[in-house]
């Protein structure tokens, strides 16, 4: 189950910072997830295309950063245009996709464009699902709505802490624990065989 083992939030614990602060409700989470995911896939694809032209290891890293910065900038402009309110809510974390650890931690892909894209898509999908779930749960606990639809009785606030980064981190930890319960971590050796 490669998807689980590469899961950015649960297993690799990357991109947590953006998720905790920005994904305070389902809409924000979804937007952040989609933006990050698209930048991830596209910049990965372009980097794989240009891989053959750069031999130097360090040069590759710099190039990758430039590419992801370009795509992040484009994503920021699109999000601002489509849903300006959400863009304001996400604040600094939208342009920060450029330096999102998730992007920078991508292993050097020697296999060409196809595998790079499919890898990126898998990670992106996982990230989008989980960050949206996190946002939805936090929204539910804080104001009782999901995607704006009132689920809990109006006026009932489960806990104010869910909207804070501290509550987000706690919730993330509990969800990760739940994930480990459902699909326990495999040892490193099994990973190599798989």
């Amino acid at each position, binding site marked *: 189950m490669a998807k689980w083992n590469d899961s950015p939030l649960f297993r690799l614990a990357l991109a947590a910072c953006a998720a905790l602060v920005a994904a305070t409700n389902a809409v924000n989470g979804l937007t952040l997830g989609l933006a990050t995911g698209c930048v991830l896939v596209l910049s990965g694809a372009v980097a794989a295309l240009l891989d053959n032209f750069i031999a130097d290891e360090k040069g590759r890293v710099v190039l990758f950063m430039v590419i992801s910065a370009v795509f992040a900038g484009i994503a920021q402009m699109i999000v601002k245009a489509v849903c300006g309110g959400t863009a304001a809510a996400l604040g600094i974390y939208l342009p920060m996709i450029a330096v999102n650890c998730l992007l920078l931690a991508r292993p050097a892909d020697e296999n060409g464009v196809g595998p790079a894209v499919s890898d990126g898509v898998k990670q992106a999908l996982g990230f989008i699902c989980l960050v949206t779930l996190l946002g939805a749960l936090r929204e539910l606990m804080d104001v009782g709505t999901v995607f704006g639809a009132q689920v809990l009785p109006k006026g009932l606030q489960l*806990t*104010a*802490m*869910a909207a*804070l980064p*501290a*509550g987000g981190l*706690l919730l993330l930890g509990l969800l990760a*624990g739940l994930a480990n319960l459902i699909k326990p971590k495999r040892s490193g050796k099994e990973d190599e065989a798989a």
Partner: protein
Amino acid sequence: MKLNLSPAPHVHTNQSTRTLMRNVLIALLPCAVAGVGFFGFNALMVLVVSTFSAVAAEYLWQAATRQKVRVGDLSAAVTGLILGLNLPATAPLWMVAIGSAFAVVIVKGLFGGLGDNFVNPALAARAMLLASWPQYMTRWYAPAGLAAVDAVTTATPLSNPGGFTTLQLILGSIPGSVGEVCKIAILLGFAWMLYTKTVTWRIPVVMVASTAVFSLAFGNNPLTAVLSGGLLFGAVFMATDYATCPMTAVGQIVYAALAGLLVAVIRKFSDYPEGVTYAILLMNVASPVIDHFITRRVYGHGKEAKNG
């Protein structure tokens, strides 16, 4: 005749985990009695619920995770009682129970159980409650004795400095959480813990002194600073939690001094009126670093070891 072959040493100290925890519970009794005396039946219910839910949470957690159930060592009871003493008497009982469960299961149990908590469980629970339900955690009522039923919200000594005499601060007829108001009760408990060698003098004394010094440096009356809020209670009962303070004497002094500094800084420069909770929590997290840098020299190592 069947001879036991267990290895040396064949003699052990009389103290056990249970006796240590029992001594802490006894030390907390004066604060509990004073708190109930000042804040009435509500306070009693808070204490009962906090202690009981902590013990129940630990029992359920240990049973659910198939560990040996060790509620008999009284550590959960201590956590529960300390948490209860840290809450306002008007705290809703469901909130108290959630706090106790959080302290015992998440801060203690998930990290490995007794001895493995990374911060003080009661204090972390209090911080969580403050972040989750701030409206219930800041309703302070003036003490009205055992007959208190309805009362008027008033400001605590930290929000209203100068509104209380020193005697009032010492005796405890002031608004505040159940256990922190009566300083005499706290000192009685401290004396009991010193006598039974449950804690050493270092951390409470240094932390209080440090708070006084830095409060003075920031322009406040040091005596009032020491007697207001949860400083004395925190320094005696919460900063001294074994698992979260450094293990060397020098390390403990550094820990307590920095905690005192943080209390004064948070009180002076931040929006929070009370700094003890976060000061101790921050120093709890810093303890392993202190232990890493301040270690004991091993006999025979270092330049003190003469070599020919």
